[in-house]
């Protein structure tokens, strides 16, 4: 009889799978960034990604996010990214333009982490066109 208890869980899992769809593939714009565990800047980082990394934006009835954030899939990770960091076209990245110069710095993991955090922590703005 134990399987009766599992039945609702199995049905629920089926609903989750069918309610999800990939909205599109986008590209990450800043030099480095983090896929967050939840839709807040202070939430933990699931993985660090770099400019031009392809990102699947997922729509799911089980996950609701504010207008600023996107629910994404990056490799095996499902998490959240600020929409302002996503581009429909492959961006012109610094590390792509100057690979040999960039590689010479041999950035360590801590530097990659902080570079990603830097982009999270910036308050970015632009004054309007007259």
């Amino acid at each position: 009889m134990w399987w009766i208890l599992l039945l609702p869980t199995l049905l629920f899992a089926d609903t989750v799978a069918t309610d999800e769809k990939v909205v599109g593939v986008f590209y990450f714009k800043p030099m480095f960034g983090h896929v967050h565990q939840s839709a807040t800047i202070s939430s933990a980082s699931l993985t660090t990604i770099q400019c031009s990394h392809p990102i699947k934006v997922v729509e799911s009835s089980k996950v609701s996010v504010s207008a600023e954030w996107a629910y994404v899939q990056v490799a095996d990770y499902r998490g959240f990214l600020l929409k302002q960091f996503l581009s429909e076209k492959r961006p012109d990245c610094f590390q792509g333009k100057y690979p040999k110069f960039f590689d010479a710095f041999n950035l360590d993991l801590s530097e990659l982490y902080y570079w990603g955090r830097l982009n999270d922590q910036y308050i970015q703005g632009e004054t309007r066109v007259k």
Partner: protein
Amino acid sequence: MISTSRAKLALSSFLISLSVLAQTGKLQDEKELEAVDFSTIKKVLQQDGLMESSRRKVKEVQILKKEQGKVESGRYFYPSESEIWGFTSEYWLVKNAQLLNWDFEKPDYGLEKSFSTTMETLGFYQKKYKILLINSPSLVKASIPGDGEMIFLLSVPFIKTLDLSKLEISLLLFEEFIRLEQGYFKKNVGTEKLKNLAGTNFRGKKPDISMIDELLKNYSNQIQEKGYTFQQQFEITKKMDSFLKSNPALWNAYFRLLGKIDKFIKVNVQYKDYVKLYPSPEMQVKWLSPAEKVL
């Protein structure tokens, strides 16, 4: 009997080969030579357009090789000067993350809206900027160049202790904007190596990243030790005066802000270095004050 028939067979085969030679007039070797003589097939090749297509292919290969060389060579360029400034500014922030303590949780102060509004009121349009709040009193404020944008650093303990309004913070940032526009930072921090190497190619050599190491040292020295001269500060104050004069509310707010900072740093030991870096709020107030009438 057998020998007579053998003699007949040899005679007939000799006669047959003689007749063949008489018909064609060419030996087998001659024919083979003709087959490898390109001058004879040249006409055929020209007729089929094969010569043209082979010439085109040679050209295409040459172009492809040239392009491949260009792409390969393009991988060995130093970034442009503007890109180097942007990269170095962020690298300096990353290297000093623990010291500056900018990775902390903070509320939304609404600075983007108020600063953009202030800039637009003063006529500065299409200006890109980034503000990084710092959770440390060790650095009050600074402005560093980005690639096509400006990066402003601002101490949260400083603005909290002074209880600055959004407008006052915006004016403080605007002063930093003018400072960067004046080019003092790049002038004080930039090196000859940066000017010489930016945008050049280093193929066949290792990139000289000591250029960035030098800049990083200069950044720390400029932001934490050296600061700006009286002359530079005077020129910035005068610029602020002329920009704000058309808007008395902003001018008065800036004048009051300088007075507030002057009083604050005189009694607060934690901020004793402020005057060394930005000389000095007291002088700035004097420079802005109308000249006293001599009777």
